[in-house]
């Protein structure tokens, strides 16, 4: 500040939307100290915040900014919704009501341009459980995961195109969302898939575990046959975001979605 004043600057502009009262009070106190022994006093300009919506929170935690790449998907949410994700922006006003699909959103006078793909509603997960009268959220979500994936596998299993005859070295890890090369070929042998309803004698927990192992084996075949890896990343990202807009908004459910791509047409859930 001293250097600025000595170099000839005599007016200062403070943007109130960036600062809290205590912060700009400190600034002005510092200015007073600098101008103690001088005849002239500086002019101070205050910019009031105004009604234009601003970004109130970015990404996870207390990060100040996020870098975005072309074709990346981003969610814009109202400030009050408690979601934390790396690709999410909280805005202090409800802009969803005045936006249509295809509109372009500018951030900081065309520093970054976003195109609206879809408009939806985010609902808290707890509110659904309250309606259902269930206390533990984990039970529902875990069951929902399995039901989803089971349906998917059943669909694929019943389809003529889908067969798990060929073994492969690829392995899809639902936790890290990555396709890993598996050296152990013993686990990936053909014809491992069992329909779970056949094992009636097993307890539910054991059945679920068995489902999980079978699911993994199913994924590796589906991915290798129908989806190229670069495409998979893109599709998975779209699906994750779309799914979180729906009522469950649960990361683990979204991770288990897989797109099935046939020769000429795209079949997907």
């Amino acid at each position, binding site marked *: 500040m001293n250097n600025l004043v000595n170099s000839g600057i005599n007016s200062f502009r403070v943007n109130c939307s960036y600062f809290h009262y205590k912060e700009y009070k400190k600034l002005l106190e510092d200015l007073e100290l600098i101008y103690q022994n001088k005849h002239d006093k500086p002019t101070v*300009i*205050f910019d009031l915040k105004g009604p234009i919506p601003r970004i109130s929170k*970015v990404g996870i935690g207390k990060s100040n900014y996020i870098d975005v790449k*072309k074709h990346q998907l981003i969610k814009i*949410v109202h400030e009050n919704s408690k979601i934390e994700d790396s690709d999410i922006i909280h805005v202090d006003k409800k802009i969803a009501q*005045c936006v249509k699909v295809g509109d372009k959103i500018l951030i900081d006078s065309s520093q970054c341009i*976003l195109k609206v793909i*879809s408009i939806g509603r985010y609902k808290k997960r707890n509110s659904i459980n309250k309606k259902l009268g269930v206390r533990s959220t984990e039970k529902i979500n875990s069951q929902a995961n399995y039901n989803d994936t089971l349906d998917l596998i059943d669909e694929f299993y019943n389809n003529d195109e889908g067969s798990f005859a060929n073994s492969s070295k690829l392995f899809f890890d639902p936790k890290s969302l990555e396709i890993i090369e598996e050296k152990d070929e013993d686990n990936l042998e053909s014809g491992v898939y069992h329909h779970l309803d056949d094992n009636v004698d097993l307890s539910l927990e054991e059945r679920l575990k068995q489902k999980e192992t079978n699911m993994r084996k199913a994924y590796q075949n589906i991915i290798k046959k129908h989806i190229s890896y670069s495409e998979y990343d893109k599709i998975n990202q779209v699906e994750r975001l779309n799914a979180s807009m729906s009522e469950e908004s649960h990361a683990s459910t979204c991770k288990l979605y897989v797109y099935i791509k046939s020769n000429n047409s795209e079949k997907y859930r």
Partner: protein
Amino acid sequence: MKSTDDDNYMVYHRKRQKIKSSISSYNQKSTDNMLLCEVNHAGSIHLHRKVFLLGKEVVTEIDSKTIGVKDIVDLSHSIKLGVNIITVLVNNANNIEELKELAGDFENLKIFARIETSEAIYNFDSILEMSDGIVIQHGLLSTKIPHEDLCLIEMYMIEKCKLKEKPILLQTYILKSMINRKMPLTTEISNLDSAVIYRIK
């Protein structure tokens, strides 16, 4: 697991399927609060930056008041701290009247109208009469008005201010490239030149 839990799962599934079908239709509702966007132009998104739509007025469509709660708090603090000038976003002359009423009888405090919206351009004459000065947001206006008209409109506003003998500030990124470069761009130099020629304060 109890059988009641299984029923709950079924209800849960049905509800979710309904919501999924409603989302796929993309019908705009008053309850919508989430936008899914694709990045067209890469960059970095910082905190507290303005969000607006290309060719649309977000302020009027949201029906939000031009003077919010934080503005009133900041105004009261700025009076205590002895600030010289306050700039406020304005759509019409009534907004300045409101602010003057809030500020009370403080002769030292000057209120400048910040022109960022197309509505403010339409009501420029009445705003100029009420305010002590004008601030033109060059960057934001360029997103609302066609680029070829922007220069003429700014010229008009500057000439009007000169006639009324009121100060005018042009708020734009002048010499921003010098954050990363040692020398400014030629376009930035010409911007500065024109500001000096038109005697913008």
